[in-house]
């Protein structure tokens, strides 16, 4: 049996997926990128290979994606995360029409057409507002683990607004809300709504069609997903492991690259 790998090295996490030639996912790994993106790609690949219980030599082709896609040693070629998320999402749900991916420093909305090809996409501008990094900064300001932001937000009773677009200014807003005695739950909810608002604009630009899938680390935050769904007026589905959809798409490209 031959295997194929996709490695997605983003600004916050490095993810690797191993699939077999029947396109069945065998294993994956998600590791923090840290301060060495090259090593992060290698570590994620090694971890996924170990979990798959195979030898690295059995991996016939590797495609990389993500911000550090050109620094992944194992990869024969690279693809953008836009193409990979569309590919991965289409593989999981062939009726997908729109993919929303919020990663560490980018948020994007992708319109997916026939055979998982990208019809149109919109990305945040230069600024990291509304991305995973934004959420991380706010979680730090609230002294809450990133993964618990949504549970905290669920306890919100008062609607607050964070209006600043800039992450730095929004952080000061959070600090001033704290100093005004507002509850962490209400502030967390406001942070999630700020992300939903900003992302909603991108989604509107490319359009909502059929099944809407949300990928990337921020999709694990249920408050953001619910508020965003409200914002765009359409249900949003989150795959079981939203963080590896890009790497999965890259692995699928690896099969095609080998076949071609």
């Amino acid at each position, binding site marked *: 049996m031959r295997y194929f790998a996709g490695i997605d090295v983003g600004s916050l996490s490095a993810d690797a997926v191993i699939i077999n030639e029947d396109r069945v996912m065998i294993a994956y790994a998600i590791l923090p990128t840290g301060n060495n993106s090259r090593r992060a790609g290698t570590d994620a690949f090694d971890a996924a290979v170990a979990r798959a219980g195979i030898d690295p030599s059995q991996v016939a082709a590797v495609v990389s994606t993500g911000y550090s896609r050109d620094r992944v040693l194992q990869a024969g070629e690279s693809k953008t995360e836009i193409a990979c998320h569309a590919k991965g999402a289409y593989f999981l749900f062939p009726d997908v029409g729109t993919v929303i991916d919020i990663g560490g420093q*980018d948020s994007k909305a992708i319109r997916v057409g026939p055979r998982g090809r990208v019809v*149109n996409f919109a990305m945040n*501008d230069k600024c990291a507002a509304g991305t995973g990094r934004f959420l991380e900064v706010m979680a730090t300001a609230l002294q809450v683990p990133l993964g618990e932001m949504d549970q905290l937000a669920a306890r919100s009773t008062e609607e607050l607004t964070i209006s600043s677009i800039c992450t730095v200014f929004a952080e000061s807003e959070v600090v001033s809300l704290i100093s005004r005695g507002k509850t962490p739950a209400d502030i967390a909810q406001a942070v999630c709504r700020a992300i939903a608002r900003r992302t909603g604009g991108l989604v509107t630009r490319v359009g909502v069609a059929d099944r809407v899938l949300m990928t990337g680390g921020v999709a694990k935050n249920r408050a953001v997903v619910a508020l965003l769904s409200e914002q765009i007026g359409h249900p949003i589905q989150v795959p079981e492991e939203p963080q590896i959809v890009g790497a999965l798409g890259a692995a699928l490209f690896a099969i095609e690259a080998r076949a071609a």
Partner: protein
Amino acid sequence: MTELKATEKMKEILTNYYIEAKTTTQKPIAWITSGAPVEFLISSGVIPIYPENYAAMCAANHQSVALMEAAEAEGFSQDICAYARTDFGADLTQGGPVGGLPAPHFLLCSTNICKTVIKWYEVVARKYKVPLFVVDTPFLHDGLTRELIDYTVRQFKDLERFLGEFLGRPFDRDHFLEVLSLARDATDYWKKTLYLAKARPAPINSLDSFIHLGPIVTLRGTRECADYYKLLYEEINLRGKQGIGSIPEERYRVLWDNLPVWFKMRRLEKFFEKRKCALVVNTYANSWGGISDFLDPGITDPYDLLAASYLNVYINFGFEERIKYLAKLIDEFSLTGFIMHSNRSCKPYSVGMYRLQEEVSQLTGKPGVVIEADQNDPRVYSDAQVETRLEAFIEAMEACL
């Protein structure tokens, strides 16, 4: 850049121009905006100096950051056009590739490129205590009208009177018409050269045209400028006939909208070449081909024609016209997509760009992408962000081939 024999000639012309401007004791110097009617200055023996051009040179030489920091330390906001900041800094420190620009005797400013230039030139006028002449060219929301032409022509006549008084000799209209004719020759050749890129592969690309803009902007109306563009045209035409492309392999043909990113020219050149993507045409370099483009059979008077061409500049007309123009270029040049540079410095060029992208994509069925960048300020530019968007755009074009 595509290796062209003409490049040496251009360097020689521009070097001589700067040497004369920096050393002359006889000729008056006027600072002028890139969209102003330089023909009046050329025919009056005034040396035109283009701060915008100089700012671009500073950025291409990776000197703009220090100059902008000097301007910002004086209190100029980071939100002002980076050309203005680069020039304020170059003036304060006498910096940049030629050690600052020669002091002006007067200033000529036209609002067809933006309204920032009014405040910018007022700052210069106050500093040097020199007169400022503004040619106001209203925005063409709904196309060109007789009233707008008359309004602009009246200002040209005022400009002639101003020059006559300032220089102490009457404005020579006969000579002016000769200069206009030379300007027309140069812009004709420039436009013909740019349109050679319709061929596949394109023998010239936008990164070349950004570089070869120098003389058409600064020396339009001189004999050497007209001769230069004839030379350039002949060389590119020959390349076209021989089927020589501007990049080794051309798979994608795209339009670039807005100014270049001057401090990333080389990196972007390599980026596009590696991905077989030729920047075939751009709205920016085309702007100096406009004078020969306005062929309303009803307009024959040279002043009317001049007014029409200075009003009818891409960034001085409304969205409907921009959409039509972009769609026409995409069709005529057989393009596979288009890139829009949302330029933090140049608001009139960038406003409404996301909507424009959607409209043009719908109209032409071609993918487009908006990248966030700046013409002159590397501090607001991210290689990774821009290149990810461009790569995704190229993937989208591939899917459409």
